[in-house]
């Protein structure tokens, strides 16, 4: 590695981003804790809190393991098959991840609920109905949300195996088992732990899904306990303590994954196209089954939501369009900010000897309780600036930081490859700073950057504006418009707004993702 006097300064942007994330994640927590102690509340965890931690861990482990595990055959099938509509299918199956929670839940219930298609079929066949409510429902919903993310990230891992290696495998007469052993498993070993941790941490801070489908107080998560401490007991000390537990669990999982993950070390290729997919009938059947099952599971609820939203579309007024415009502007700004934060952090994670630390810091936003984050920011900023005036920058920043872990997950593995494959050559040619980004990193990372931008935009557009403390009640975003319609009994119009929101999020995702893959240097 090139050492020398520049080693520290070149990570300065990454360090600054890491400091910002730590300040947002831990600084706000400290502010809440400080205020809680000032209120004189004793911050201690009771048996109910421990029960909540147990349930949270258990459902998160199950959800992450199932999501990541089921994603492997789906991603593999997508990686080795070419068929008309493949790109569109990959895009659409990604949609659940960016749906607003309540919309996705209603979609799932239309399939798996008490009056849903599955139970309709069971009753028709004379079988007893099944209940979605309980741990099974929580896990089902989390898999529904996160399988798309896992598929995309693993698919990207497949894409990162140079075509030369597949050609070599073919020339050596490798069957599927040998390809799995020599190419796929090393890739999965490098990619899967990161995917698992990301989903584990997402599920760790689950609140509305776990509660709505959990069926009752058995399904109390840490995030609900935080919410309870804040609004039911106004015990800020306990809220901060629980938020700290959530972050500690996240970092624990990250450490575990770092211990398991091994870089695949495939080396560089020449960006040649993949050899034509081979395999016998069984392999084809297996892939068709994986893609078909995933598409059915992910798209059926989506289709039912869309269908029930159609009549409501006509009931949407100018306010809905204005809200959509506002959400769009907010999403674009957040996306730009998210990339501006994620890329320096990823670069530091890929190049610094302390890369694992940068990577772990990048996970913190996922584990941060949005309630504690908002409250802490409110406590810190209050007195400096009027909350309503800070609403826009705060929402932008929070959306950007919340999407950052996904961008990091998508960008970091290929950035590490770039560093391993071309870091020496770049150093030898004195390619650094802005020129290194322009001529080396950005062209080689077009696809993951486009994917990240799409994800950030979609997530930001679908976000409720978590920070109700800063809301002024007037500049309404589309998700807030949706919830307000629901709160005002207008369920049909709300489903129309949900359809509009889904179209907006998916459209944003599609444009960025396609822009990234179109003419991308790597497949």
């Amino acid at each position, binding site marked *: 590695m090139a050492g020398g006097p520049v080693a520290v300064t070149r990570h300065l942007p990454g360090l600054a981003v890491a400091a910002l994330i730590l300040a947002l994640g831990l600084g706000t927590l400290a502010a809440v804790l400080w205020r809680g102690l000032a209120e004189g509340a004793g911050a201690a965890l009771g048996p109910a809190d421990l029960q909540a931690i147990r349930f949270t861990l258990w459902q998160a482990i199950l959800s992450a393991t199932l999501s990541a595990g089921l994603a492997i055959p789906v991603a593999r099938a997508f990686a080795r098959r070419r068929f008309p509509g493949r790109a569109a299918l990959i895009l659409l199956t990604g949609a659940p991840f960016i749906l607003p929670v*309540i919309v996705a839940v209603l979609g799932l219930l239309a399939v798996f609920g008490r009056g849903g298609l599955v139970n309709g079929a069971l009753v028709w066949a004379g079988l007893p109905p099944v209940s979605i409510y309980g741990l099974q429902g929580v896990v089902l919903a989390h898999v529904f949300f996160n399988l798309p993310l896992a598929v995309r990230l693993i698919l990207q891992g497949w894409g990162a195996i140079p075509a030369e290696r597949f050609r070599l495998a073919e020339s050596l007469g490798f069957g599927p088992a040998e390809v799995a052993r020599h190419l796929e498993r090393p890739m999965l070993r490098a990619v899967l732990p990161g995917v698992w941790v990301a989903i584990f941490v997402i599920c760790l801070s689950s609140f509305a899904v776990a509660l*709505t489908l959990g*069926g009752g107080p058995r399904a109390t998560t840490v995030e*609900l306990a935080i919410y309870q401490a804040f609004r039911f007991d106004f015990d800020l000390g306990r809220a901060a303590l629980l938020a700290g537990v959530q972050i500690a669990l996240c970092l624990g999982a990250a450490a575990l994954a770092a211990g398991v993950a091994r870089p695949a070390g495939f080396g560089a290729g020449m960006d040649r196209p993949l050899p034509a997919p081979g395999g016998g009938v069984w392999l084809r059947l297996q892939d068709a089954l994986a893609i078909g099952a995933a598409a059915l599971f992910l798209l059926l609820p989506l289709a039912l939501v869309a269908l029930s939203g159609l009549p409501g579309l006509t009931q949407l007024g100018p306010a809905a369009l204005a809200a959509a415009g506002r959400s769009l502007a907010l999403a674009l700004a957040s996306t730009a900010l998210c990339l501006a934060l994620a890329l320096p952090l990823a670069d530091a994670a890929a190049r610094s000897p302390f890369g694992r630390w940068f990577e772990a810091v990048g996970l913190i936003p996922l584990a941060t309780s949005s309630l504690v984050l908002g409250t802490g920011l409110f406590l810190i900023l*209050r007195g400096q600036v009027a909350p309503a005036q800070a609403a826009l920058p705060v929402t932008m920043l929070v959306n950007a930081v919340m999407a950052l872990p996904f961008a990091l997950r998508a960008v970091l593995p290929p950035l590490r490859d770039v560093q391993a494959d071309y870091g020496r050559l770049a150093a030898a040619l004195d390619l650094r700073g802005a020129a290194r980004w322009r001529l080396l990193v950005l062209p080689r990372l077009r696809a993951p950057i486009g994917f990240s931008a799409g994800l950030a935009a979609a997530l930001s557009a679908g976000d409720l504006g978590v920070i*109700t*403390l800063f809301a002024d*009640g*007037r500049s309404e975003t589309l998700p807030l418009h949706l919830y307000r319609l629901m709160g005002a009994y207008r369920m049909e119009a709300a489903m129309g707004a949900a359809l509009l929101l889904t179209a907006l999020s998916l459209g944003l995702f599609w444009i960025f993702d396609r822009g990234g893959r179109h003419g991308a240097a790597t497949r």
Partner: protein
Amino acid sequence: MIRPISTLTALLLPVAAAAQDRPVLTVYTYDSFVSDWGPGPQVETAFEAICGCDLVFVAAGDGAELLARLRLEGATTEADVVLGLDSNLTAAATATGLFADHGVTDVDFDMPVVWDDPMFLPYDWGYFAFVYDRTRVAEPPADFPALAASDLKIVIQDPRASTPGLGLLLWVKAAYPDRAAEIWQGLADNILTVTPGWSEAYGLFTEGEADMVLSYTTSPAYHLIAEGDDSKAAASFAEGHYLQVEVAGKIASSAESDLADRFMAFIVTPDFQSVIPETNWMYPAVTPPGGLPAGFETMIAPVQALLYPPGEAEDIRDEALAEWQAALSR
């Protein structure tokens, strides 16, 4: 029409529109009050027509989050008036020491309980009730034991996260002070699920997932009046129904004290009260001269109104919550 430039400006400068020369009255309230379909817009127009001021609503989640925000801000709050706490929160709100007496006297409230709190002024009220669809449930249960004995599936809200959820908790406790745990155990197999808020629960109900949902006796009025749909009804329970009284209070440290007083007085006038029924879908605290809108007379009239006095509600809720958690965690 979307005008991109004005949209962007509104986004960037949310408070820039506030007039420079008129005094500003800041009213904290819950989010659904200020939505396009809530009372907020009409109340704002009506009050600004007579006050020579700029009435600014600041929305913060629901009633409980409103109180939490106020506690965070303490005496430095920008609020002049807080509108949207309910009777279960007034004891905690009083304890903050932030509120002043409202000074509005001689009001003839049309409410099922006597109200003489000098600090918190009611603006509307309603009864919690289970709402069902007549086309799907022919004979609704007449009390909690009947509900528990039925096969009906209900959706309720979590008392830790939602105001109606807490209302149901106190309803069961007020109706069965010594048997609440037993009632909850009986209801356990009827409870399809527990949602974080009213919207999710009501959405599950209208999507046909549940037979009944915890809401208000006045909820069917929305479907009847706004949608011309008379299929929704509230089940009348023999134990009586728990009451929710929504109140407003004046902040003692308000810099616009006179204006705040005028707004408090305005709350119980017909201009404010007549907006309530068809926006908040609750009963106005003082029935306006024209009476209630047509359709409200078809709502059930509970035989008895249940309500813990403010201090007691605060004391009893932890015990009631523990019973609820224990019964439903089995």
